[in-house]
C-alpha cells in the first residue's frame, strides 16, 4: 500500500466525518461559546469587561446551592431507580414464555411519547385532585384532596421522579434486554453446569454482562434527568427548584443583572453533565452504537 493511499484513506475518512462535525461543531459549539461568554458578562447588556460576578453570585446564593442539591438528588435517584427497575423488568420479561414479543412491544410503548405529555398525564394521575385521589374519595378512604399525599410540587419532587421512571425504566429495560439477547442465556447455562446457583448466576454472570451497556445508558438518563426543564416545571417544587427551571427563572427576571447568572447556571449544568459523561463515556458510546462487549463472546 503506498503511503499516498493511506493519506488518501485518511483524507476520505475526515471528509466523510466533516458534515456531521461541522454541523454539530458550528451550531452546538457556537451556542456553548455564546452561553459561556454571556455568563461572564460579555455580549450581554453589561458594559463592564469579563467578570466572574455571576459565578461569585451563585456561590454565595444559598438558593443556588439548594437547587443544585435538589437537581443532583432528582437525577441520581431517578437514574439509579431506573437502572434497578429497568434491569428487573428485563429479567422479568426474559422469563416470559408465550406472548413475550407482545409484552416487550407494550413495555416500550411510551418510549416515543415526549416527556411533556408524560408530565401532563402523571399530574392528572397523582395530583391531589388526580384520578387516584378521586378513587380514594369514591371509596371513602380520603375525604378531601388534601388528604391525598402531596407528591406533586413537593419538596422531594416525587412526581417528577415518577415521570422520569415512567419513561426511563423501559429505556434501561430495553437496553438490558438487547444485551442479554446477544448471548445472555448461553452464558447462564454454562454457569449452571459449572455449579452456579440461581443467585450466583445473577451476581456473577447476568449483572457483569449488563454492567457496561446499562452503565452507559444510565449516563444518558442522568444527563437528561439532570438537565431537562419541562417536567420539573410542570410537576416539581417551586422553591427550591431544579437548576434548569432556576436558570429559566433568572433568565426571564426583570432585573437585567440576573441574566449572566442564568447563563452561569446553564454553564454549571453543562459542566456537571459533561463530567458525568466523561465518567461513563466509553460505555455510553458503545451502548448507543449497539456493539456491546458481549458480541465478542458469540464469536
Amino acid at each position, binding site marked *: 500500500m503506498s503511503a499516498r493511499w493511506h493519506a488518501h484513506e485518511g483524507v476520505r475518512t475526515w471528509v466523510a466525518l466533516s458534515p456531521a462535525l461541522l454541523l454539530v461543531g458550528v451550531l452546538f459549539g457556537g451556542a456553548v461559546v455564546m452561553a459561556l461568554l454571556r455568563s461572564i458578562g460579555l455580549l450581554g447588556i453589561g458594559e463592564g469587561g469579563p467578570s466572574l460576578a455571576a459565578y461569585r453570585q451563585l456561590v454565595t446564593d444559598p438558593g443556588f446551592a439548594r437547587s443544585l442539591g435538589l437537581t443532583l438528588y432528582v437525577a441520581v435517584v431517578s437514574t439509579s431507580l431506573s437502572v434497578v427497575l429497568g434491569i428487573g423488568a428485563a429479567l422479568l420479561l426474559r422469563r416470559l414464555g408465550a406472548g413475550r414479543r407482545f409484552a416487550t412491544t407494550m413495555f416500550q410503548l411510551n418510549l416515543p411519547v415526549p416527556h411533556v405529555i408524560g408530565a401532563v398525564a402523571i399530574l392528572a394521575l397523582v395530583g391531589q385532585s388526580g384520578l387516584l385521589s378521586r378513587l380514594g374519595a369514591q371509596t371513602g378512604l380520603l375525604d378531601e384532596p388534601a388528604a391525598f399525599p402531596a407528591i406533586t410540587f413537593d419538596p422531594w419532587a416525587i412526581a417528577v421522579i415518577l415521570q422520569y421512571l415512567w419513561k426511563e425504566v423501559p429505556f434501561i429495560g430495553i437496553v438490558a434486554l438487547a444485551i442479554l439477547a446477544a448471548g445472555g442465556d448461553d452464558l447462564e447455562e454454562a*454457569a449452571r453446569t*459449572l455449579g*452456579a446457583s440461581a443467585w*450466583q448466576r445473577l451476581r456473577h454472570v447476568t449483572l457483569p454482562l449488563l454492567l457496561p451497556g446499562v452503565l452507559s445508558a444510565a449516563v444518558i438518563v442522568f444527563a437528561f434527568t439532570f438537565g431537562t426543564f419541562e417536567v420539573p416545571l410542570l410537576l416539581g417544587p417551586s422553591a427550591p427548584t431544579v437548576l434548569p427551571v432556576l436558570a429559566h427563572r433568572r433568565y426571564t427576571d426583570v432585573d437585567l443583572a440576573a441574566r449572566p447568572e442564568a447563563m452561569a447556571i446553564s454553564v454549571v449544568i453543562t459542566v456537571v453533565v459533561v463530567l458525568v459523561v466523561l465518567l461513563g463515556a466509553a460505555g455510553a458510546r458503545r451502548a448507543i452504537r449497539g456493539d456491546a462487549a*458481549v458480541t465478542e463472546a458469540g464469536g
Partner: protein
Amino acid sequence: MTDIHLDGLTRRFGDVLALDDLHLDVAGGSITALLGPSGCGKTTALQLVAGLLRPTSGRVRFGDRDVTEVAAERRGAVMVFQDHRLFPYLTAGDNVAFGLRMRGVARRERRRTAAAALERVGLEGLAGRRPAELSSGQRQRVALARALVLEPEVLLLDEPLANLDAHLRAGMRELILDLQRDRELTMVVVTHDQEEAVVLAGDIALLFDGRLHQHGAPRTFFERPATARTARFFGTTNLVPGHRSGRQVRTPLGVLHVPDGAPGSGADGTPDHGSDSIPGAGAVWVLVRPERLRVDRGDTDHPRVTGRVLHSTYLGTRTRAEVEVAGVRLTVDASDDALADAGPGTSLTLVLPPAALWTVPRADDDGQWLPAPHPATSTAGTAEPT
C-alpha cells in the same frame, strides 16, 4: 468412576419429538460418542444428561443416584459447549477459576489451581488474557480447563471441535483423550463427525430422528453395520443388491459367499435395536469396503469380477477408482500400481475377499443410495440373479 444410565429418556418440544425413548448405558471411566446428523436429538440428549433440560419422561441415573430431578448446578456433570461460552468480562484465569469460585474456594487457592489447569492444556502464562484476545483453539482449551478444574464425575462435550480448524482438531483430540485417561472421567461427546467419534469414543451411539439406531464399538459400525443407513452414514460406499439364503447371496456380480454371523449383529454380539427383525434370508445389501477390494493378480482363488473403469483419482498414498461391473458401480481404494495406471474404459478384474463381505437387510424400495446406473452401459436396474 460414575457410570451413566439413561432409561427411556424422551423429550418433546410442543409437537416436535426431539428424543424418543432413549435407553443407553455409559460405563464409568469410558467415553461414549452420541453420533448422528444435525437434528437427530443428540444435543437434546446431552442437555438432559446435564440437567439443562427436564425430560418429558424417562430417568437419568449417575451410578445408583437418580439425578433426573437434580438441578444442573448440583448434578456434578460439567458441559463444554461448541461455542466455548467463556465469560467475556473475565480473564482466562478467572474463567477457569469460575467453578471453584462458585464453590467458595479461596482466591489464592483458585488462582493456583487455575494456573495449573491452564498449564495442563498448554496455555501457561495466558491467565491474564481476555477471551477476545485468544484464538478459537485457545478459547476451546480454556473452556476445557474450566470444566476439568472441577474434577467432575461426568464430563459432557457438545461438538467441542466443530469450530476449530482441521489442523487444531487432531491436537485437541489428543488432549481430550489424554485428560480423560489421566482422570478416568466418564465422558459423553456429541458430534456429527464419525471420524471424531471413532477416534475419541470407546463406544458409539448412533441416533437418527430422535431414536437410537445402533450402539456398539466403533469397529462394528465400519465392519458390521446393522443397517444400510448406518453403512451409508459411515461412508461404506459399496452396496451391492442381492438375495440371501443361508450363506449364499445371489447378486448381479454372481453368487457370493458371506462369512458366518447373523447379518447386522455387532461383532461382540450386543443386541441391536435396529436389526432384530432380520431373517436369515431375503433382500439384502452386500457391503464391501473400498479399501478391502484388490486388483486381481491371479494369486488367489477368491471370487473375482471383471468390469470397466469409469474414472480414477490419485490420492497420494493410494488411488481411488470407480469400476462398473454388470451395472453395479464399485469404488476401489488401493495403492496397487495397476490401479494407478488404469485409465477410464480399461477392463479390470477385482478380487472380492469373502471375509470383507457383510450383508444388511434391504427394504424393497430402499435403492435410493444406488447411483442411477449409467443409462448408456447399464443393463436392467438390478441384475437378475445369474
